[in-house]
């Protein structure tokens, strides 16, 4: 389409046409690239090393561990440590392995995630769209409260839970997770709902929808991504919790992290490093799977959780 009349292709200005032409030469192996990618690869190896060590150690037999070094791949692959970690490892009097802790953690995490998100999303919605006198003050207390070290509040909460008759039970722990998940989740949902165009909310009100109607039929279907972010945040957070587990549950209901620590750091008996590492991987598996599957949403979650503290 270019009109050659107005765009003479060949000019007679006598410029050196044989000089540099096309893209600046940038060999793949330029010094910059070697340094850049070299550094990145070294760093990546460093970050991956612990994962690698965990896996290879968990696949070796104890004699091999005593002889070899921790970075060497297993000569003879054995899954025995995994079986033992899952079903036979002892903590105190129980010798039924991590499986008990795993199921406890599931029983803690699932209801905690559901209840904390349900409450916080409605909360955030009320704060974003139905402000009332004092709502912002409570929200401010909530956000600043999230900076208070848990250690300050754990003991009085023990008393509260005891009064409610749920101290030491899974229910008690679910309540605690719901409470301490509230600041970050409420913030997450409030900020999300604030970003929803206000006209939409007004239009729904004109159409006669009320508090719950707008929440269930308009806000909820629109905000699935933020729910996914919240779920990721809560699953990893609650699964990884140690402090609340150790304070608010009894040995029978210990979550996985507490049981793992008891298995590995128990002073009795011979240290079985391969079983320990297998147990460690199994414990880390759930958040890792969530992390690798969620990809960018996880990053969004922690960026949103940046105000947590």
């Amino acid at each position, binding site marked *: 389409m270019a009109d050659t009349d107005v765009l003479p292709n060949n000019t007679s200005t006598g410029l050196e046409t044989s000089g540099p032409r096309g893209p600046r030469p940038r060999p793949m192996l330029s010094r910059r690239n070697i340094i*850049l990618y070299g550094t*990145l690869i070294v760093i*990546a190896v460093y*970050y991956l090393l*612990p994962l690698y*060590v*965990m896996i290879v150690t968990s696949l070796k037999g104890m004699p091999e561990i005593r002889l070899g*070094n*921790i970075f060497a791949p297993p000569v003879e692959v054995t899954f025995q440590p995994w079986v033992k970690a899952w079903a036979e490892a002892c903590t105190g009097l129980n010798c039924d392995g991590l499986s008990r802790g795993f199921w406890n953690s599931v029983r803690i995490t699932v209801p905690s995630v559901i209840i904390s998100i349900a*409450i916080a999303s*409605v*909360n955030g919605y*009320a*704060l974003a769209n*139905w402000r*009332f006198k004092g*709502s*912002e003050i*409570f*929200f*401010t*207390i*909530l956000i*600043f*409260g999230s900076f*208070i*070290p848990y*250690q*300050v*509040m754990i003991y009085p*909460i023990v008393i509260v839970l005891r009064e409610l008759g749920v101290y030491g039970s899974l229910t008690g722990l679910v309540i605690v997770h*719901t*409470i301490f998940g*509230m600041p970050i989740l*409420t913030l997450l949902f409030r900020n999300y709902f604030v970003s929803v165009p206000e006209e939409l909310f007004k239009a729904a009100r004109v159409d006669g929808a*009320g508090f719950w109607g707008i929440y269930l039929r308009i806000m909820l279907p629109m905000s699935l991504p933020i729910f996914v972010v919240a779920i990721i945040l809560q699953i*990893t957070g609650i*699964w*990884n919790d*140690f*402090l609340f587990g150790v*304070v608010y549950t009894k040995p029978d209901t210990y979550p996985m*992290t507490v049981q*793992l*620590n008891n298995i*590995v*750091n128990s002073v009795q008996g011979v240290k079985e490093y391969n079983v320990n*590492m297998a147990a*460690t991987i199994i*414990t*880390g598996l759930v958040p890792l799977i*969530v992390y690798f599957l969620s*990809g960018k949403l*996880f*990053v969004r979650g*922690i*960026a949103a959780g*940046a*105000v947590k*503290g």
Partner: protein
Amino acid sequence: MATSDRPFQPFRNLNAKIASIPMILTALVIFIGCTIWTIYYSFTKSKLLPKSNFVGFDQYERLWSTRRWLVSIENLVIYGSLSLIFSLIIGFLLAALLDQKIRFEDTFRTILLYPFALSFIVTGLVWQWILNPDFGVQSVVQGLGWESFSFNPLYDADIVIYGVLIAGLWQGTGLVMCLMLAGLRGIDEDIWKAARVDGIPMWKTYLYIVIPMMRPVFITTIVIITSGIVRVYDLVVAQTGGGPGIASEVPAKYVYDYMFQSQNLGQGFAASSMMLVTVAVIVIPWAYLEFGGKRRG
């Protein structure tokens, strides 16, 4: 808009108020109530059970004359300042590296961030194993020929806190990197172009233009890191158990042990109140800078 049937004030917006009950209860009962309760009982002689027999600042005096608490504070200061400095530097450098329009950026980011998805217990146990003197890094390096090589942080009281620091940085720098990367991505492309036209070398552009522009990101990151540091507990429990001896004790562990193991509640309350003071010293100036000028919250 008839004013005659305007509802009675407290019932206006009733559903929103009902929905906010959990938030209000949490804010008032847990965050304010429990905190005041703890501070109140930190002035008592409570042992096994909380009792209202006041002893003034006795618990605090005893706290500050207990060697274990002093070690804990010293560790917190060392661990905290180094962890803060290193995670900011490393996190920023990693973010700057990832910001060079590299290939496989997502892969590298995934690798650098995955430790953050893990529990501190898992992190502590892995690094306990890697730093194990008989099988870990020390023995591997010795096996390679450096017989005199010695790196045994977990059993050397002088350097044990650095062993914890290595693990903490491994887990936490990915988060800092992510926050920094988001900050870098928020910088106007045209600024970079202008700097190139001006002929400013890249490192100078970062140092004199980009980093000053990222001040808010740095402040937020510092607040996040520090309030995390004050709470550090799980990592120490898993990696060193506070040992060898009391060499790697931290305040959070001191609180737990006094409250739930030594049946000395008063000490636990006093120690946790001190932790609260530490956090307040950081958070209040930040909040004042961040929101003070405009409005609360």
